[in-house]
């Protein structure tokens, strides 16, 4: 009855996605209620959002402030983010269950085709985020992270799903465990760092200079701090990616008879490495920090996503394990 385990895994995945959706909405509510500890003049809100006319808010401006702005909102905000976190954790546990069942059904590690990569990769992104939360308050990232989860898992379930299949001989190697797992963890760090860079751009961009947005963004860390946080995560990601590249080369030597052959996947892994190397150099280059650095980080992460989502499926090469 091998198929029933897999269908249970799918059921858990859809449950996880529903819970992630709720987490996404709750995080969004939390974000919209964020305020500076001391609210900026009462008038700002009423000017910015003519709620009387029924025009919906922009999503950043939030609602018109109620009579006693500080107290109830602080409570509400705390509650919303706590609920959101609980939902995210629950979603992650369901997601974990789905991944474990998939691996159990296949009788191996669950990362041998696109569907399984996506399943495990997204699991690790949330794991990195949850671990990060233990060290520092990054609840403001929840909307971006859970939103990213929904998009990626949605694509995985709809476009990448394939039934459990045995491992082809080229993948039967312990390097599958090392190389792919480290690549997935690196991706997790790059993803959370990209979410921070995205926040940094919102925080420092034109949008943040409008009065209503300035209020909404006041609850977020300063662009400087966001940049530093993204840099540190990308640094860990870069070290892991370097290892991925080298482990991949060692495996390629064993499986294909050469450690480097400019296969499309190798090319893109190299491009990602070079982009993040550039990102790290940018930090020490005058005129290249701030917004430019954030853009570089986002370009790097786009290359990671491209390498995974596009190269695996649409490019011909030796890494054609998508199973599609």
């Amino acid at each position, binding site marked *: 009855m091998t198929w029933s385990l897999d269908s249970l895994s799918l059921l858990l995945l859809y449950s996880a996605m529903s819970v992630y959706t709720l987490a996404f909405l709750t995080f969004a509510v939390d974000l919209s209620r964020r305020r500076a500890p001391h609210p900026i003049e009462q008038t700002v809100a009423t000017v910015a959002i003519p709620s009387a006319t029924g025009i919906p808010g922009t999503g950043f401006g939030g609602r018109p402030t109620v009579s006693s702005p500080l107290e109830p909102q602080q409570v509400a905000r705390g509650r919303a983010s706590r609920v959101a976190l609980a939902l995210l954790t629950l979603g992650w546990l369901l997601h974990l269950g789905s991944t474990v069942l998939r691996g159990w059904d296949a009788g191996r590690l669950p990362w041998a085709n696109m569907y399984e990569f996506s399943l495990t990769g997204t699991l690790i992104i949330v794991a990195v985020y949850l671990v990060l939360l233990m060290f520092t308050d990054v609840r403001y990232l929840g909307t971006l992270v859970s939103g990213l989860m929904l998009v990626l898992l949605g694509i995985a379930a709809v476009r990448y799903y394939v039934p459990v*299949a045995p491992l*082809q001989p080229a993948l039967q190697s312990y390097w599958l465990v090392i190389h792919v797992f480290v690549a997935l963890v690196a991706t997790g760090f790059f993803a959370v760092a990209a979410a921070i860079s995205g926040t940094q751009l919102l925080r420092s961009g034109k949008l943040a200079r409008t009065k209503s947005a300035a209020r909404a963004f006041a609850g977020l860390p300063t662009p400087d701090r966001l940049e530093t946080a993204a840099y*540190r995560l990308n*640094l860990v990601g870069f*070290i892991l990616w370097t290892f991925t590249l*080298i482990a991949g080369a060692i495996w390629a030597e064993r*499986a294909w008879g050469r450690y480097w*052959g400019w296969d499309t996947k190798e090319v893109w892994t190299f*491009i990602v490495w070079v982009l993040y190397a550039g990102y790290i*150099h940018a930090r020490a280059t005058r005129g290249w920090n701030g917004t430019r650095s954030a853009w570089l980080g986002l370009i790097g992460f786009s290359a990671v996503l491209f390498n995974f989502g596009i190269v695996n499926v649409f490019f011909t090469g030796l890494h054609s394990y998508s199973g599609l």
Partner: protein
Amino acid sequence: MRTALLLLLALAVAAVPGSLVPQRSADPNGVSQYFDNNPEIAPILDAVQAFDVYSSAWFSAIYLLLFVSLIGCILPRTKHHLVALRARPPRTPAKLRRMPSYQTAATTHTPERAVAAATTVLRRSGYRVTSYRIGDALSVSAERGYLRETGNLLFHASLVGILIAVGLGAGFGFTGQRVVVEGQSFVNSLASYDSFSPGRFFDVGRLDRYSMTLNAFTVDYEQQNLNSLGTPIDYTADVTVTDTNGDPAVNARVKVNEPLRAASTDVYLLGNGYAPRITVRAPDGTVVFSDDVPFLPQDANLTSLGVVKVPDGLAEQLGLVGFFYPTQDQLTTGAYMSVYPDLTYPVLTLNAYTGDLGIDDGAPKSVYALDTSGLAQLTGGTTGVDSLELKPGETAALPGGLGTVTLDTVKRFASFEVHSDPAQGWALVFSILVVLGLLLSLLIPRRRMWVKAIPTSTGTTLEYAGLARGDDPRLNHAVDALHTAHLAALEKEHQ
């Protein structure tokens, strides 16, 4: 830094086209196909070396410039670092409170004692320590994390090492491919390779003489999982390696992911397929052709395409082109196909052609292709004569009493790649050094710490300050810890 950054970004952008257009090095068939499909664009792309991106002038220019700038950076920094390694930590700044991390405390101890205790505490946590006197104030200046710069230099120097190792490996190594049918052998010599690509400085004399016999080639197929029935799950080539030094023959196994290290070469299992043994006889029964003919797989169920050329012995030169189906089945259109990759219902179909095969003029021709343009077709197609169809052991007569064709047995073949890269080990060593250097340079904090003791009327005012080079999330924590440890050490002395 700006140069390095711009060159890195340029390198990333320059690497992209090589993934969009097939490359001669990785996919030569893809390139010729591209030429067929896009006859207008292909020559233009070829002119800008788009099919050889990674050896193109422009790509090489970028990475060579990058490495020049890299070396231009490493050399002065190494010199500077060597000086710093022997130098005393720098003089204590006059205004410590301007440092990014700063704390004060007061003590009843004399400045001398405070400074002595600070020296001990800092030494114990791995700092290089020296003391300075400025006016009345005594101070300790300490520095740690020299390994950060060492790691940084190691990382960048090892990248240069990798580049050199890659270059040497490509220059002195070689790659060769050879198809071997079960029971056959191949000798590691230039002539016995099907294809051979030597490096620029490769010397034929360096080929170690050994022979390898393929005793058996086994494939396991998935039998349980209905979703992937027939997916190969294991390939094993059992081989015997004999070297010419007179050492006893060694039995070995080559698998995907488990290459055979034979002499100074590595032997990889790259592909496999079927080699039906086909015998052609003249009308009087004389054997004019008999061989295991490797048929090239065309799909996952190993529908395979092959060619037989019989230049002599028959009334006319004979060419046979056909398909081999390990498990034959028929589509509703009547076309044959293979539905399973193992030999459960093997069928060979052949179309016969007669005429000049075009192999007598001395120009080399592929054994896997038959140019039928000048030939007369005898069976199949529009001839109205059915194609020859054979199961193992069967014989069919060629039209016009030309002779007979027999399918004797079906063996498997394996295609091996033999590879030698004398600098491969060096590339690995430098890669490991790259990771090591990276870890050191990114994870070891480089910090300067100062403790200043200023005498006051009631005792001594203590100032603690820290400065980091590069990103250092733990700097404040480190200054805190120094402060606590220092006061604790002074306290202990008191008791």
